[in-house]
């Protein structure tokens, strides 16, 4: 049984950021993730925005960590080569009453430490964003927020943690957790048929001195398994449209509406990949129900057109929804109980706050280390860089040099997004290689374009089968059990003719 100083349970963006921060210290860290990849929950299905931080209530953890997290992200995204773009945001108001909300946000922003805010008239706002509705009469402008690739952000953090010695074990659902004589006994289960990483030893029992609960929607169950009930998860689903790049310049900033109800409301924003994202709504669901619905999508569509009437929804290429792990608390739940730490209730602005959550949890860990007189020191060397080849972003000379080095970069597999075979191969040569089509998509951008993998899917399935040394019929769309194909032609000679052959009259 392997023994660790600290076990992080869950590898969404919070778990990844915590592991990233902890990996700066001389610790034996393990990250246990129940799915076959990192960032498969709320992390891959959100707006992808690093909020400035005027929205959370002043004095809350959310307020503090959002502003700090967004500031840290700028530098970390640069170092770790995560697509990131400062585009700023506007909150628009359609009435004088809503202007008061903008003013409240402005004051909140000041209190929370947001700089570069300004209240504009509708006219001024439309000068900057010509497609804004004529009905917009006031707008709060802020220049510090950014758009980011949320899954790449989480991946980069997790990969960096692994490079610095943390151990990531995928396909490990925690099924037992108990403290015995100052150490935690952790029992996990590997799902049947799971595609394991090449070096996976299939070990399922671990011990750790400290356990960090970053289990997202499952954080409540994990907490309640070891401690008295503390918070109730109230999953909130948000549905989205993702529009073709043709619509990607409809707005150049993230456009919010003055929040009247719960949440930040429906936004319209460019994405860092050049598309237009529209959403989310906010609805209560039971568990991780990530379906979309007519009703929800219609509401998003209607609300978005209120801010930007000219959005061409016929350019939609994908709908999705994400379930945010909200709790009945109004804030993140970041608490330490002895050698157990909760990082729970990480709903929006969780992505923006992630790096600060990592720091905060590390402080909680430091308190434990001090209490228990456990050695806790920074490593002498910390690898804090990551570099990826993005063929389409290179200039002519760079492309030429790259292809000369490896002709696989001359083979464009995904034509919508111009992603080469070389880049797909690169993904297998990272600390966390992909095991599914969606895993490759998150790492390289294949299938993200307007044909949504219709053309390149079959080719990538072949590459995946070859790299993982599995039959093509075992290739997964994403999670364990999501095989794409149901059979091969090789065995069709044994097939029975349906219903014993058909009689024709």
């Amino acid at each position, binding site marked *: 049984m392997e023994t660790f100083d600290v076990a992080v349970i869950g590898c969404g963006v919070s778990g990844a950021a915590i592991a990233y921060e902890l990996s700066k210290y001389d610790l034996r860290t393990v990250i246990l993730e129940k799915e076959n990849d990192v960032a498969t929950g709320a992390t891959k299905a959100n707006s992808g925005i690093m909020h400035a931080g005027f929205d959370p209530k002043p004095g809350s953890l959310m307020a503090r960590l959002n502003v700090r997290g967004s500031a840290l992200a700028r530098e970390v995204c640069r170092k770790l080569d995560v697509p990131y773009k400062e585009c700023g945001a506007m909150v628009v108001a359609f009435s004088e009453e809503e202007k008061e909300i903008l003013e409240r946000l402005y004051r909140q922003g000041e209190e929370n430490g947001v700089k570069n805010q300004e209240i504009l008239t509708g006219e001024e706002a439309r000068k900057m964003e010509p497609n804004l509705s004529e009905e917009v009469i006031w707008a709060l402008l802020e220049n510090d927020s950014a758009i980011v690739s949320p899954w790449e952000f989480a991946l980069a953090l997790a990969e960096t943690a692994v490079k610095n010695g943390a151990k990531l074990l995928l396909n490990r659902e925690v099924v037992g957790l108990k403290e015995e004589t100052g150490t935690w006994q952790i029992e996990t289960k590997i799902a049947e048929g799971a595609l394991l990483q090449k070096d996976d030893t299939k070990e399922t029992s671990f011990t750790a001195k400290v356990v960090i609960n970053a289990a997202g929607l499952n954080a409540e169950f994990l907490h309640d398994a070891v401690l008295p009930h503390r918070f109730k998860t109230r999953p909130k689903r948000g549905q989205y449209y993702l529009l073709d790049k043709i619509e990607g310049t409809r707005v150049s900033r993230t456009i919010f509406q003055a929040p009247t109800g719960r949440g930040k409301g429906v936004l319209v924003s460019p994405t860092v990949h050049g598309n237009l994202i529209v959403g989310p709504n906010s609805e209560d669901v039971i568990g991780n129900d990530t379906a979309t619905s007519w009703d*929800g999508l219609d509401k998003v569509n209607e609300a978005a057109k209120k801010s930007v009437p000219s959005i061409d929804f016929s350019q*939609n290429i994908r709908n999705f929804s994400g379930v945010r792990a909200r709790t009945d608390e109004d804030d993140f739940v970041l608490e330490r109980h002895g050698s157990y730490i909760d990082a729970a209730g990480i709903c929006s602005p969780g992505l923006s706050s992630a790096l600060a959550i990592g720091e905060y949890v590390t402080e909680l860990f430091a308190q434990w280390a001090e209490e228990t007189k456990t050695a806790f020191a920074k490593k002498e060397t910390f690898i804090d860089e990551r570099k990826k080849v993005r063929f*389409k972003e290179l200039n002519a000379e760079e492309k030429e040099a790259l292809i000369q080095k490896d002709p696989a970069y001359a083979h464009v597999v995904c034509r919508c997004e111009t992603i080469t075979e070389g880049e797909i191969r690169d993904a297998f040569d990272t600390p966390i290689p992909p095991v599914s089509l969606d895993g490759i998509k998150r790492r390289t951008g294949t299938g993200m374009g307007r044909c949504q993998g*219709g053309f390149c*899917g079959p080719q990538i399935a072949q590459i995946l089968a070859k790299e993982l040394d599995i039959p093509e019929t075992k290739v997964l769309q994403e*999670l364990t059990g999501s095989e794409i194909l149901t*059979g091969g032609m090789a065995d069709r000679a044994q097939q029975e003719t*349906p219903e014993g052959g058909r009689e024709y009259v």
Partner: protein
Amino acid sequence: MYDLIIIGGGPAGLAAAKAAWDKGLTKILIVERNWELGGILNQCIHNGFGLHHFKEELTGPEYAARYIDEVEKTGVEVRLDTMVLDIRQTERKEDGLPVYEIPMAGKECGYTCELTKSVVLAMGCRERPRGGVVIPGTRPAGVFTAGAAQRYVNIDGYMPGKRVVILGSGDIGLIMARRMTLEGAKVLACVELMPYSSGLNRNIVQCLNDYDIPLYLSHTVTEIRGEKRVEQVVVSEVGPDRKPIPGTEMVFDCDTLLLSVGLIPENELTQGAGIEIDRRTKGAFVYENMETSLPGIFACGNVCHVHDLVDFVSDESERAGASAADYVLKKKAVSEAAPVVTKNGDGATYIVPQRIRPENVEKFVKLFFRVGRIFPKADIVLTSAGNEIARFHKKFLAPGEMQNIVVTKEVLSKATEELLLTVEEIVETEVGA
């Protein structure tokens, strides 16, 4: 320096190459991203191609082979496994013609930039994905576009499902219904939003009826269920507004949903080059000779507008190839006069070409268009400046079938600035009784 670079080695590119060569161009290059020529025809193993062009029924690979053989007899250069990355205008002129720079990446050629006097865009089209029609529900494995499924079955040799529902009754959907059935799958239903199928009657009879596959017209898929793999799809009837009618839901237990919900011209390069795009066809605006808004750049086949028959792709592409040759060899004077703009009026959804330079028209120009609904009988009426200048009687017009009319130079001479095409339905009144 090439005379002509053709982007795409499918039916459009091949026909354009052959025609340009026959017209006297000698420095021609076809750039094809796949490892073989033929494009999507390679996976269309069913028959029914070539009835117009070759007067016989060929399969897709056979139709492609006819053109590949023709091109191989010429001196046309072919680069396989090569992807064009961009089309750039340069400052350079050669023989008074603007020179274009085409960077490309290929297994053999690496990264290179080629210069050319003319370009034929022949990139074809792609299928609309699930998002294009917005189907709510979960996002499990088992949702394929019909073309992706066709590739898995016919090229890779894998089955994408065992119990299948097909959304959309376009020809690819119908063909795949039969193909999957023959390969042992159970196709439960073919579901069509419109009150009519956009596929050919022959395919409804031979692909659905032959195998007792029900066709649900005025229905659509309203929900996909299943967490990891499709488990069920919900099909609802739609009203005249094409919105689902509550209470009409039918649930199919299936593991696969194939989508045959439309094709979109693949115009990444076209847009990148700054060529004007028609929102109706989703392809480039073209003149009577298939030339786009950039001089010397031509478009043909499905990248220009989506065709239903490959025979018409070949015809159109031969015109584009020949026009490119005329352009390079300066067989036609460049006109400075304002063109006649074609406009689709009532009943028509688009027209190709969108612009006509009458002085470039030798004898006639063919107008290709689609109608917006089914017309059992109709007159196609051409008007210009409020005056009717031509009228054509037609029977059985359906949106799924591209129509064409031949406009003579004489008729064209009556048009000024604008040429409006409208479809007037002829309602039969009962005589006697």
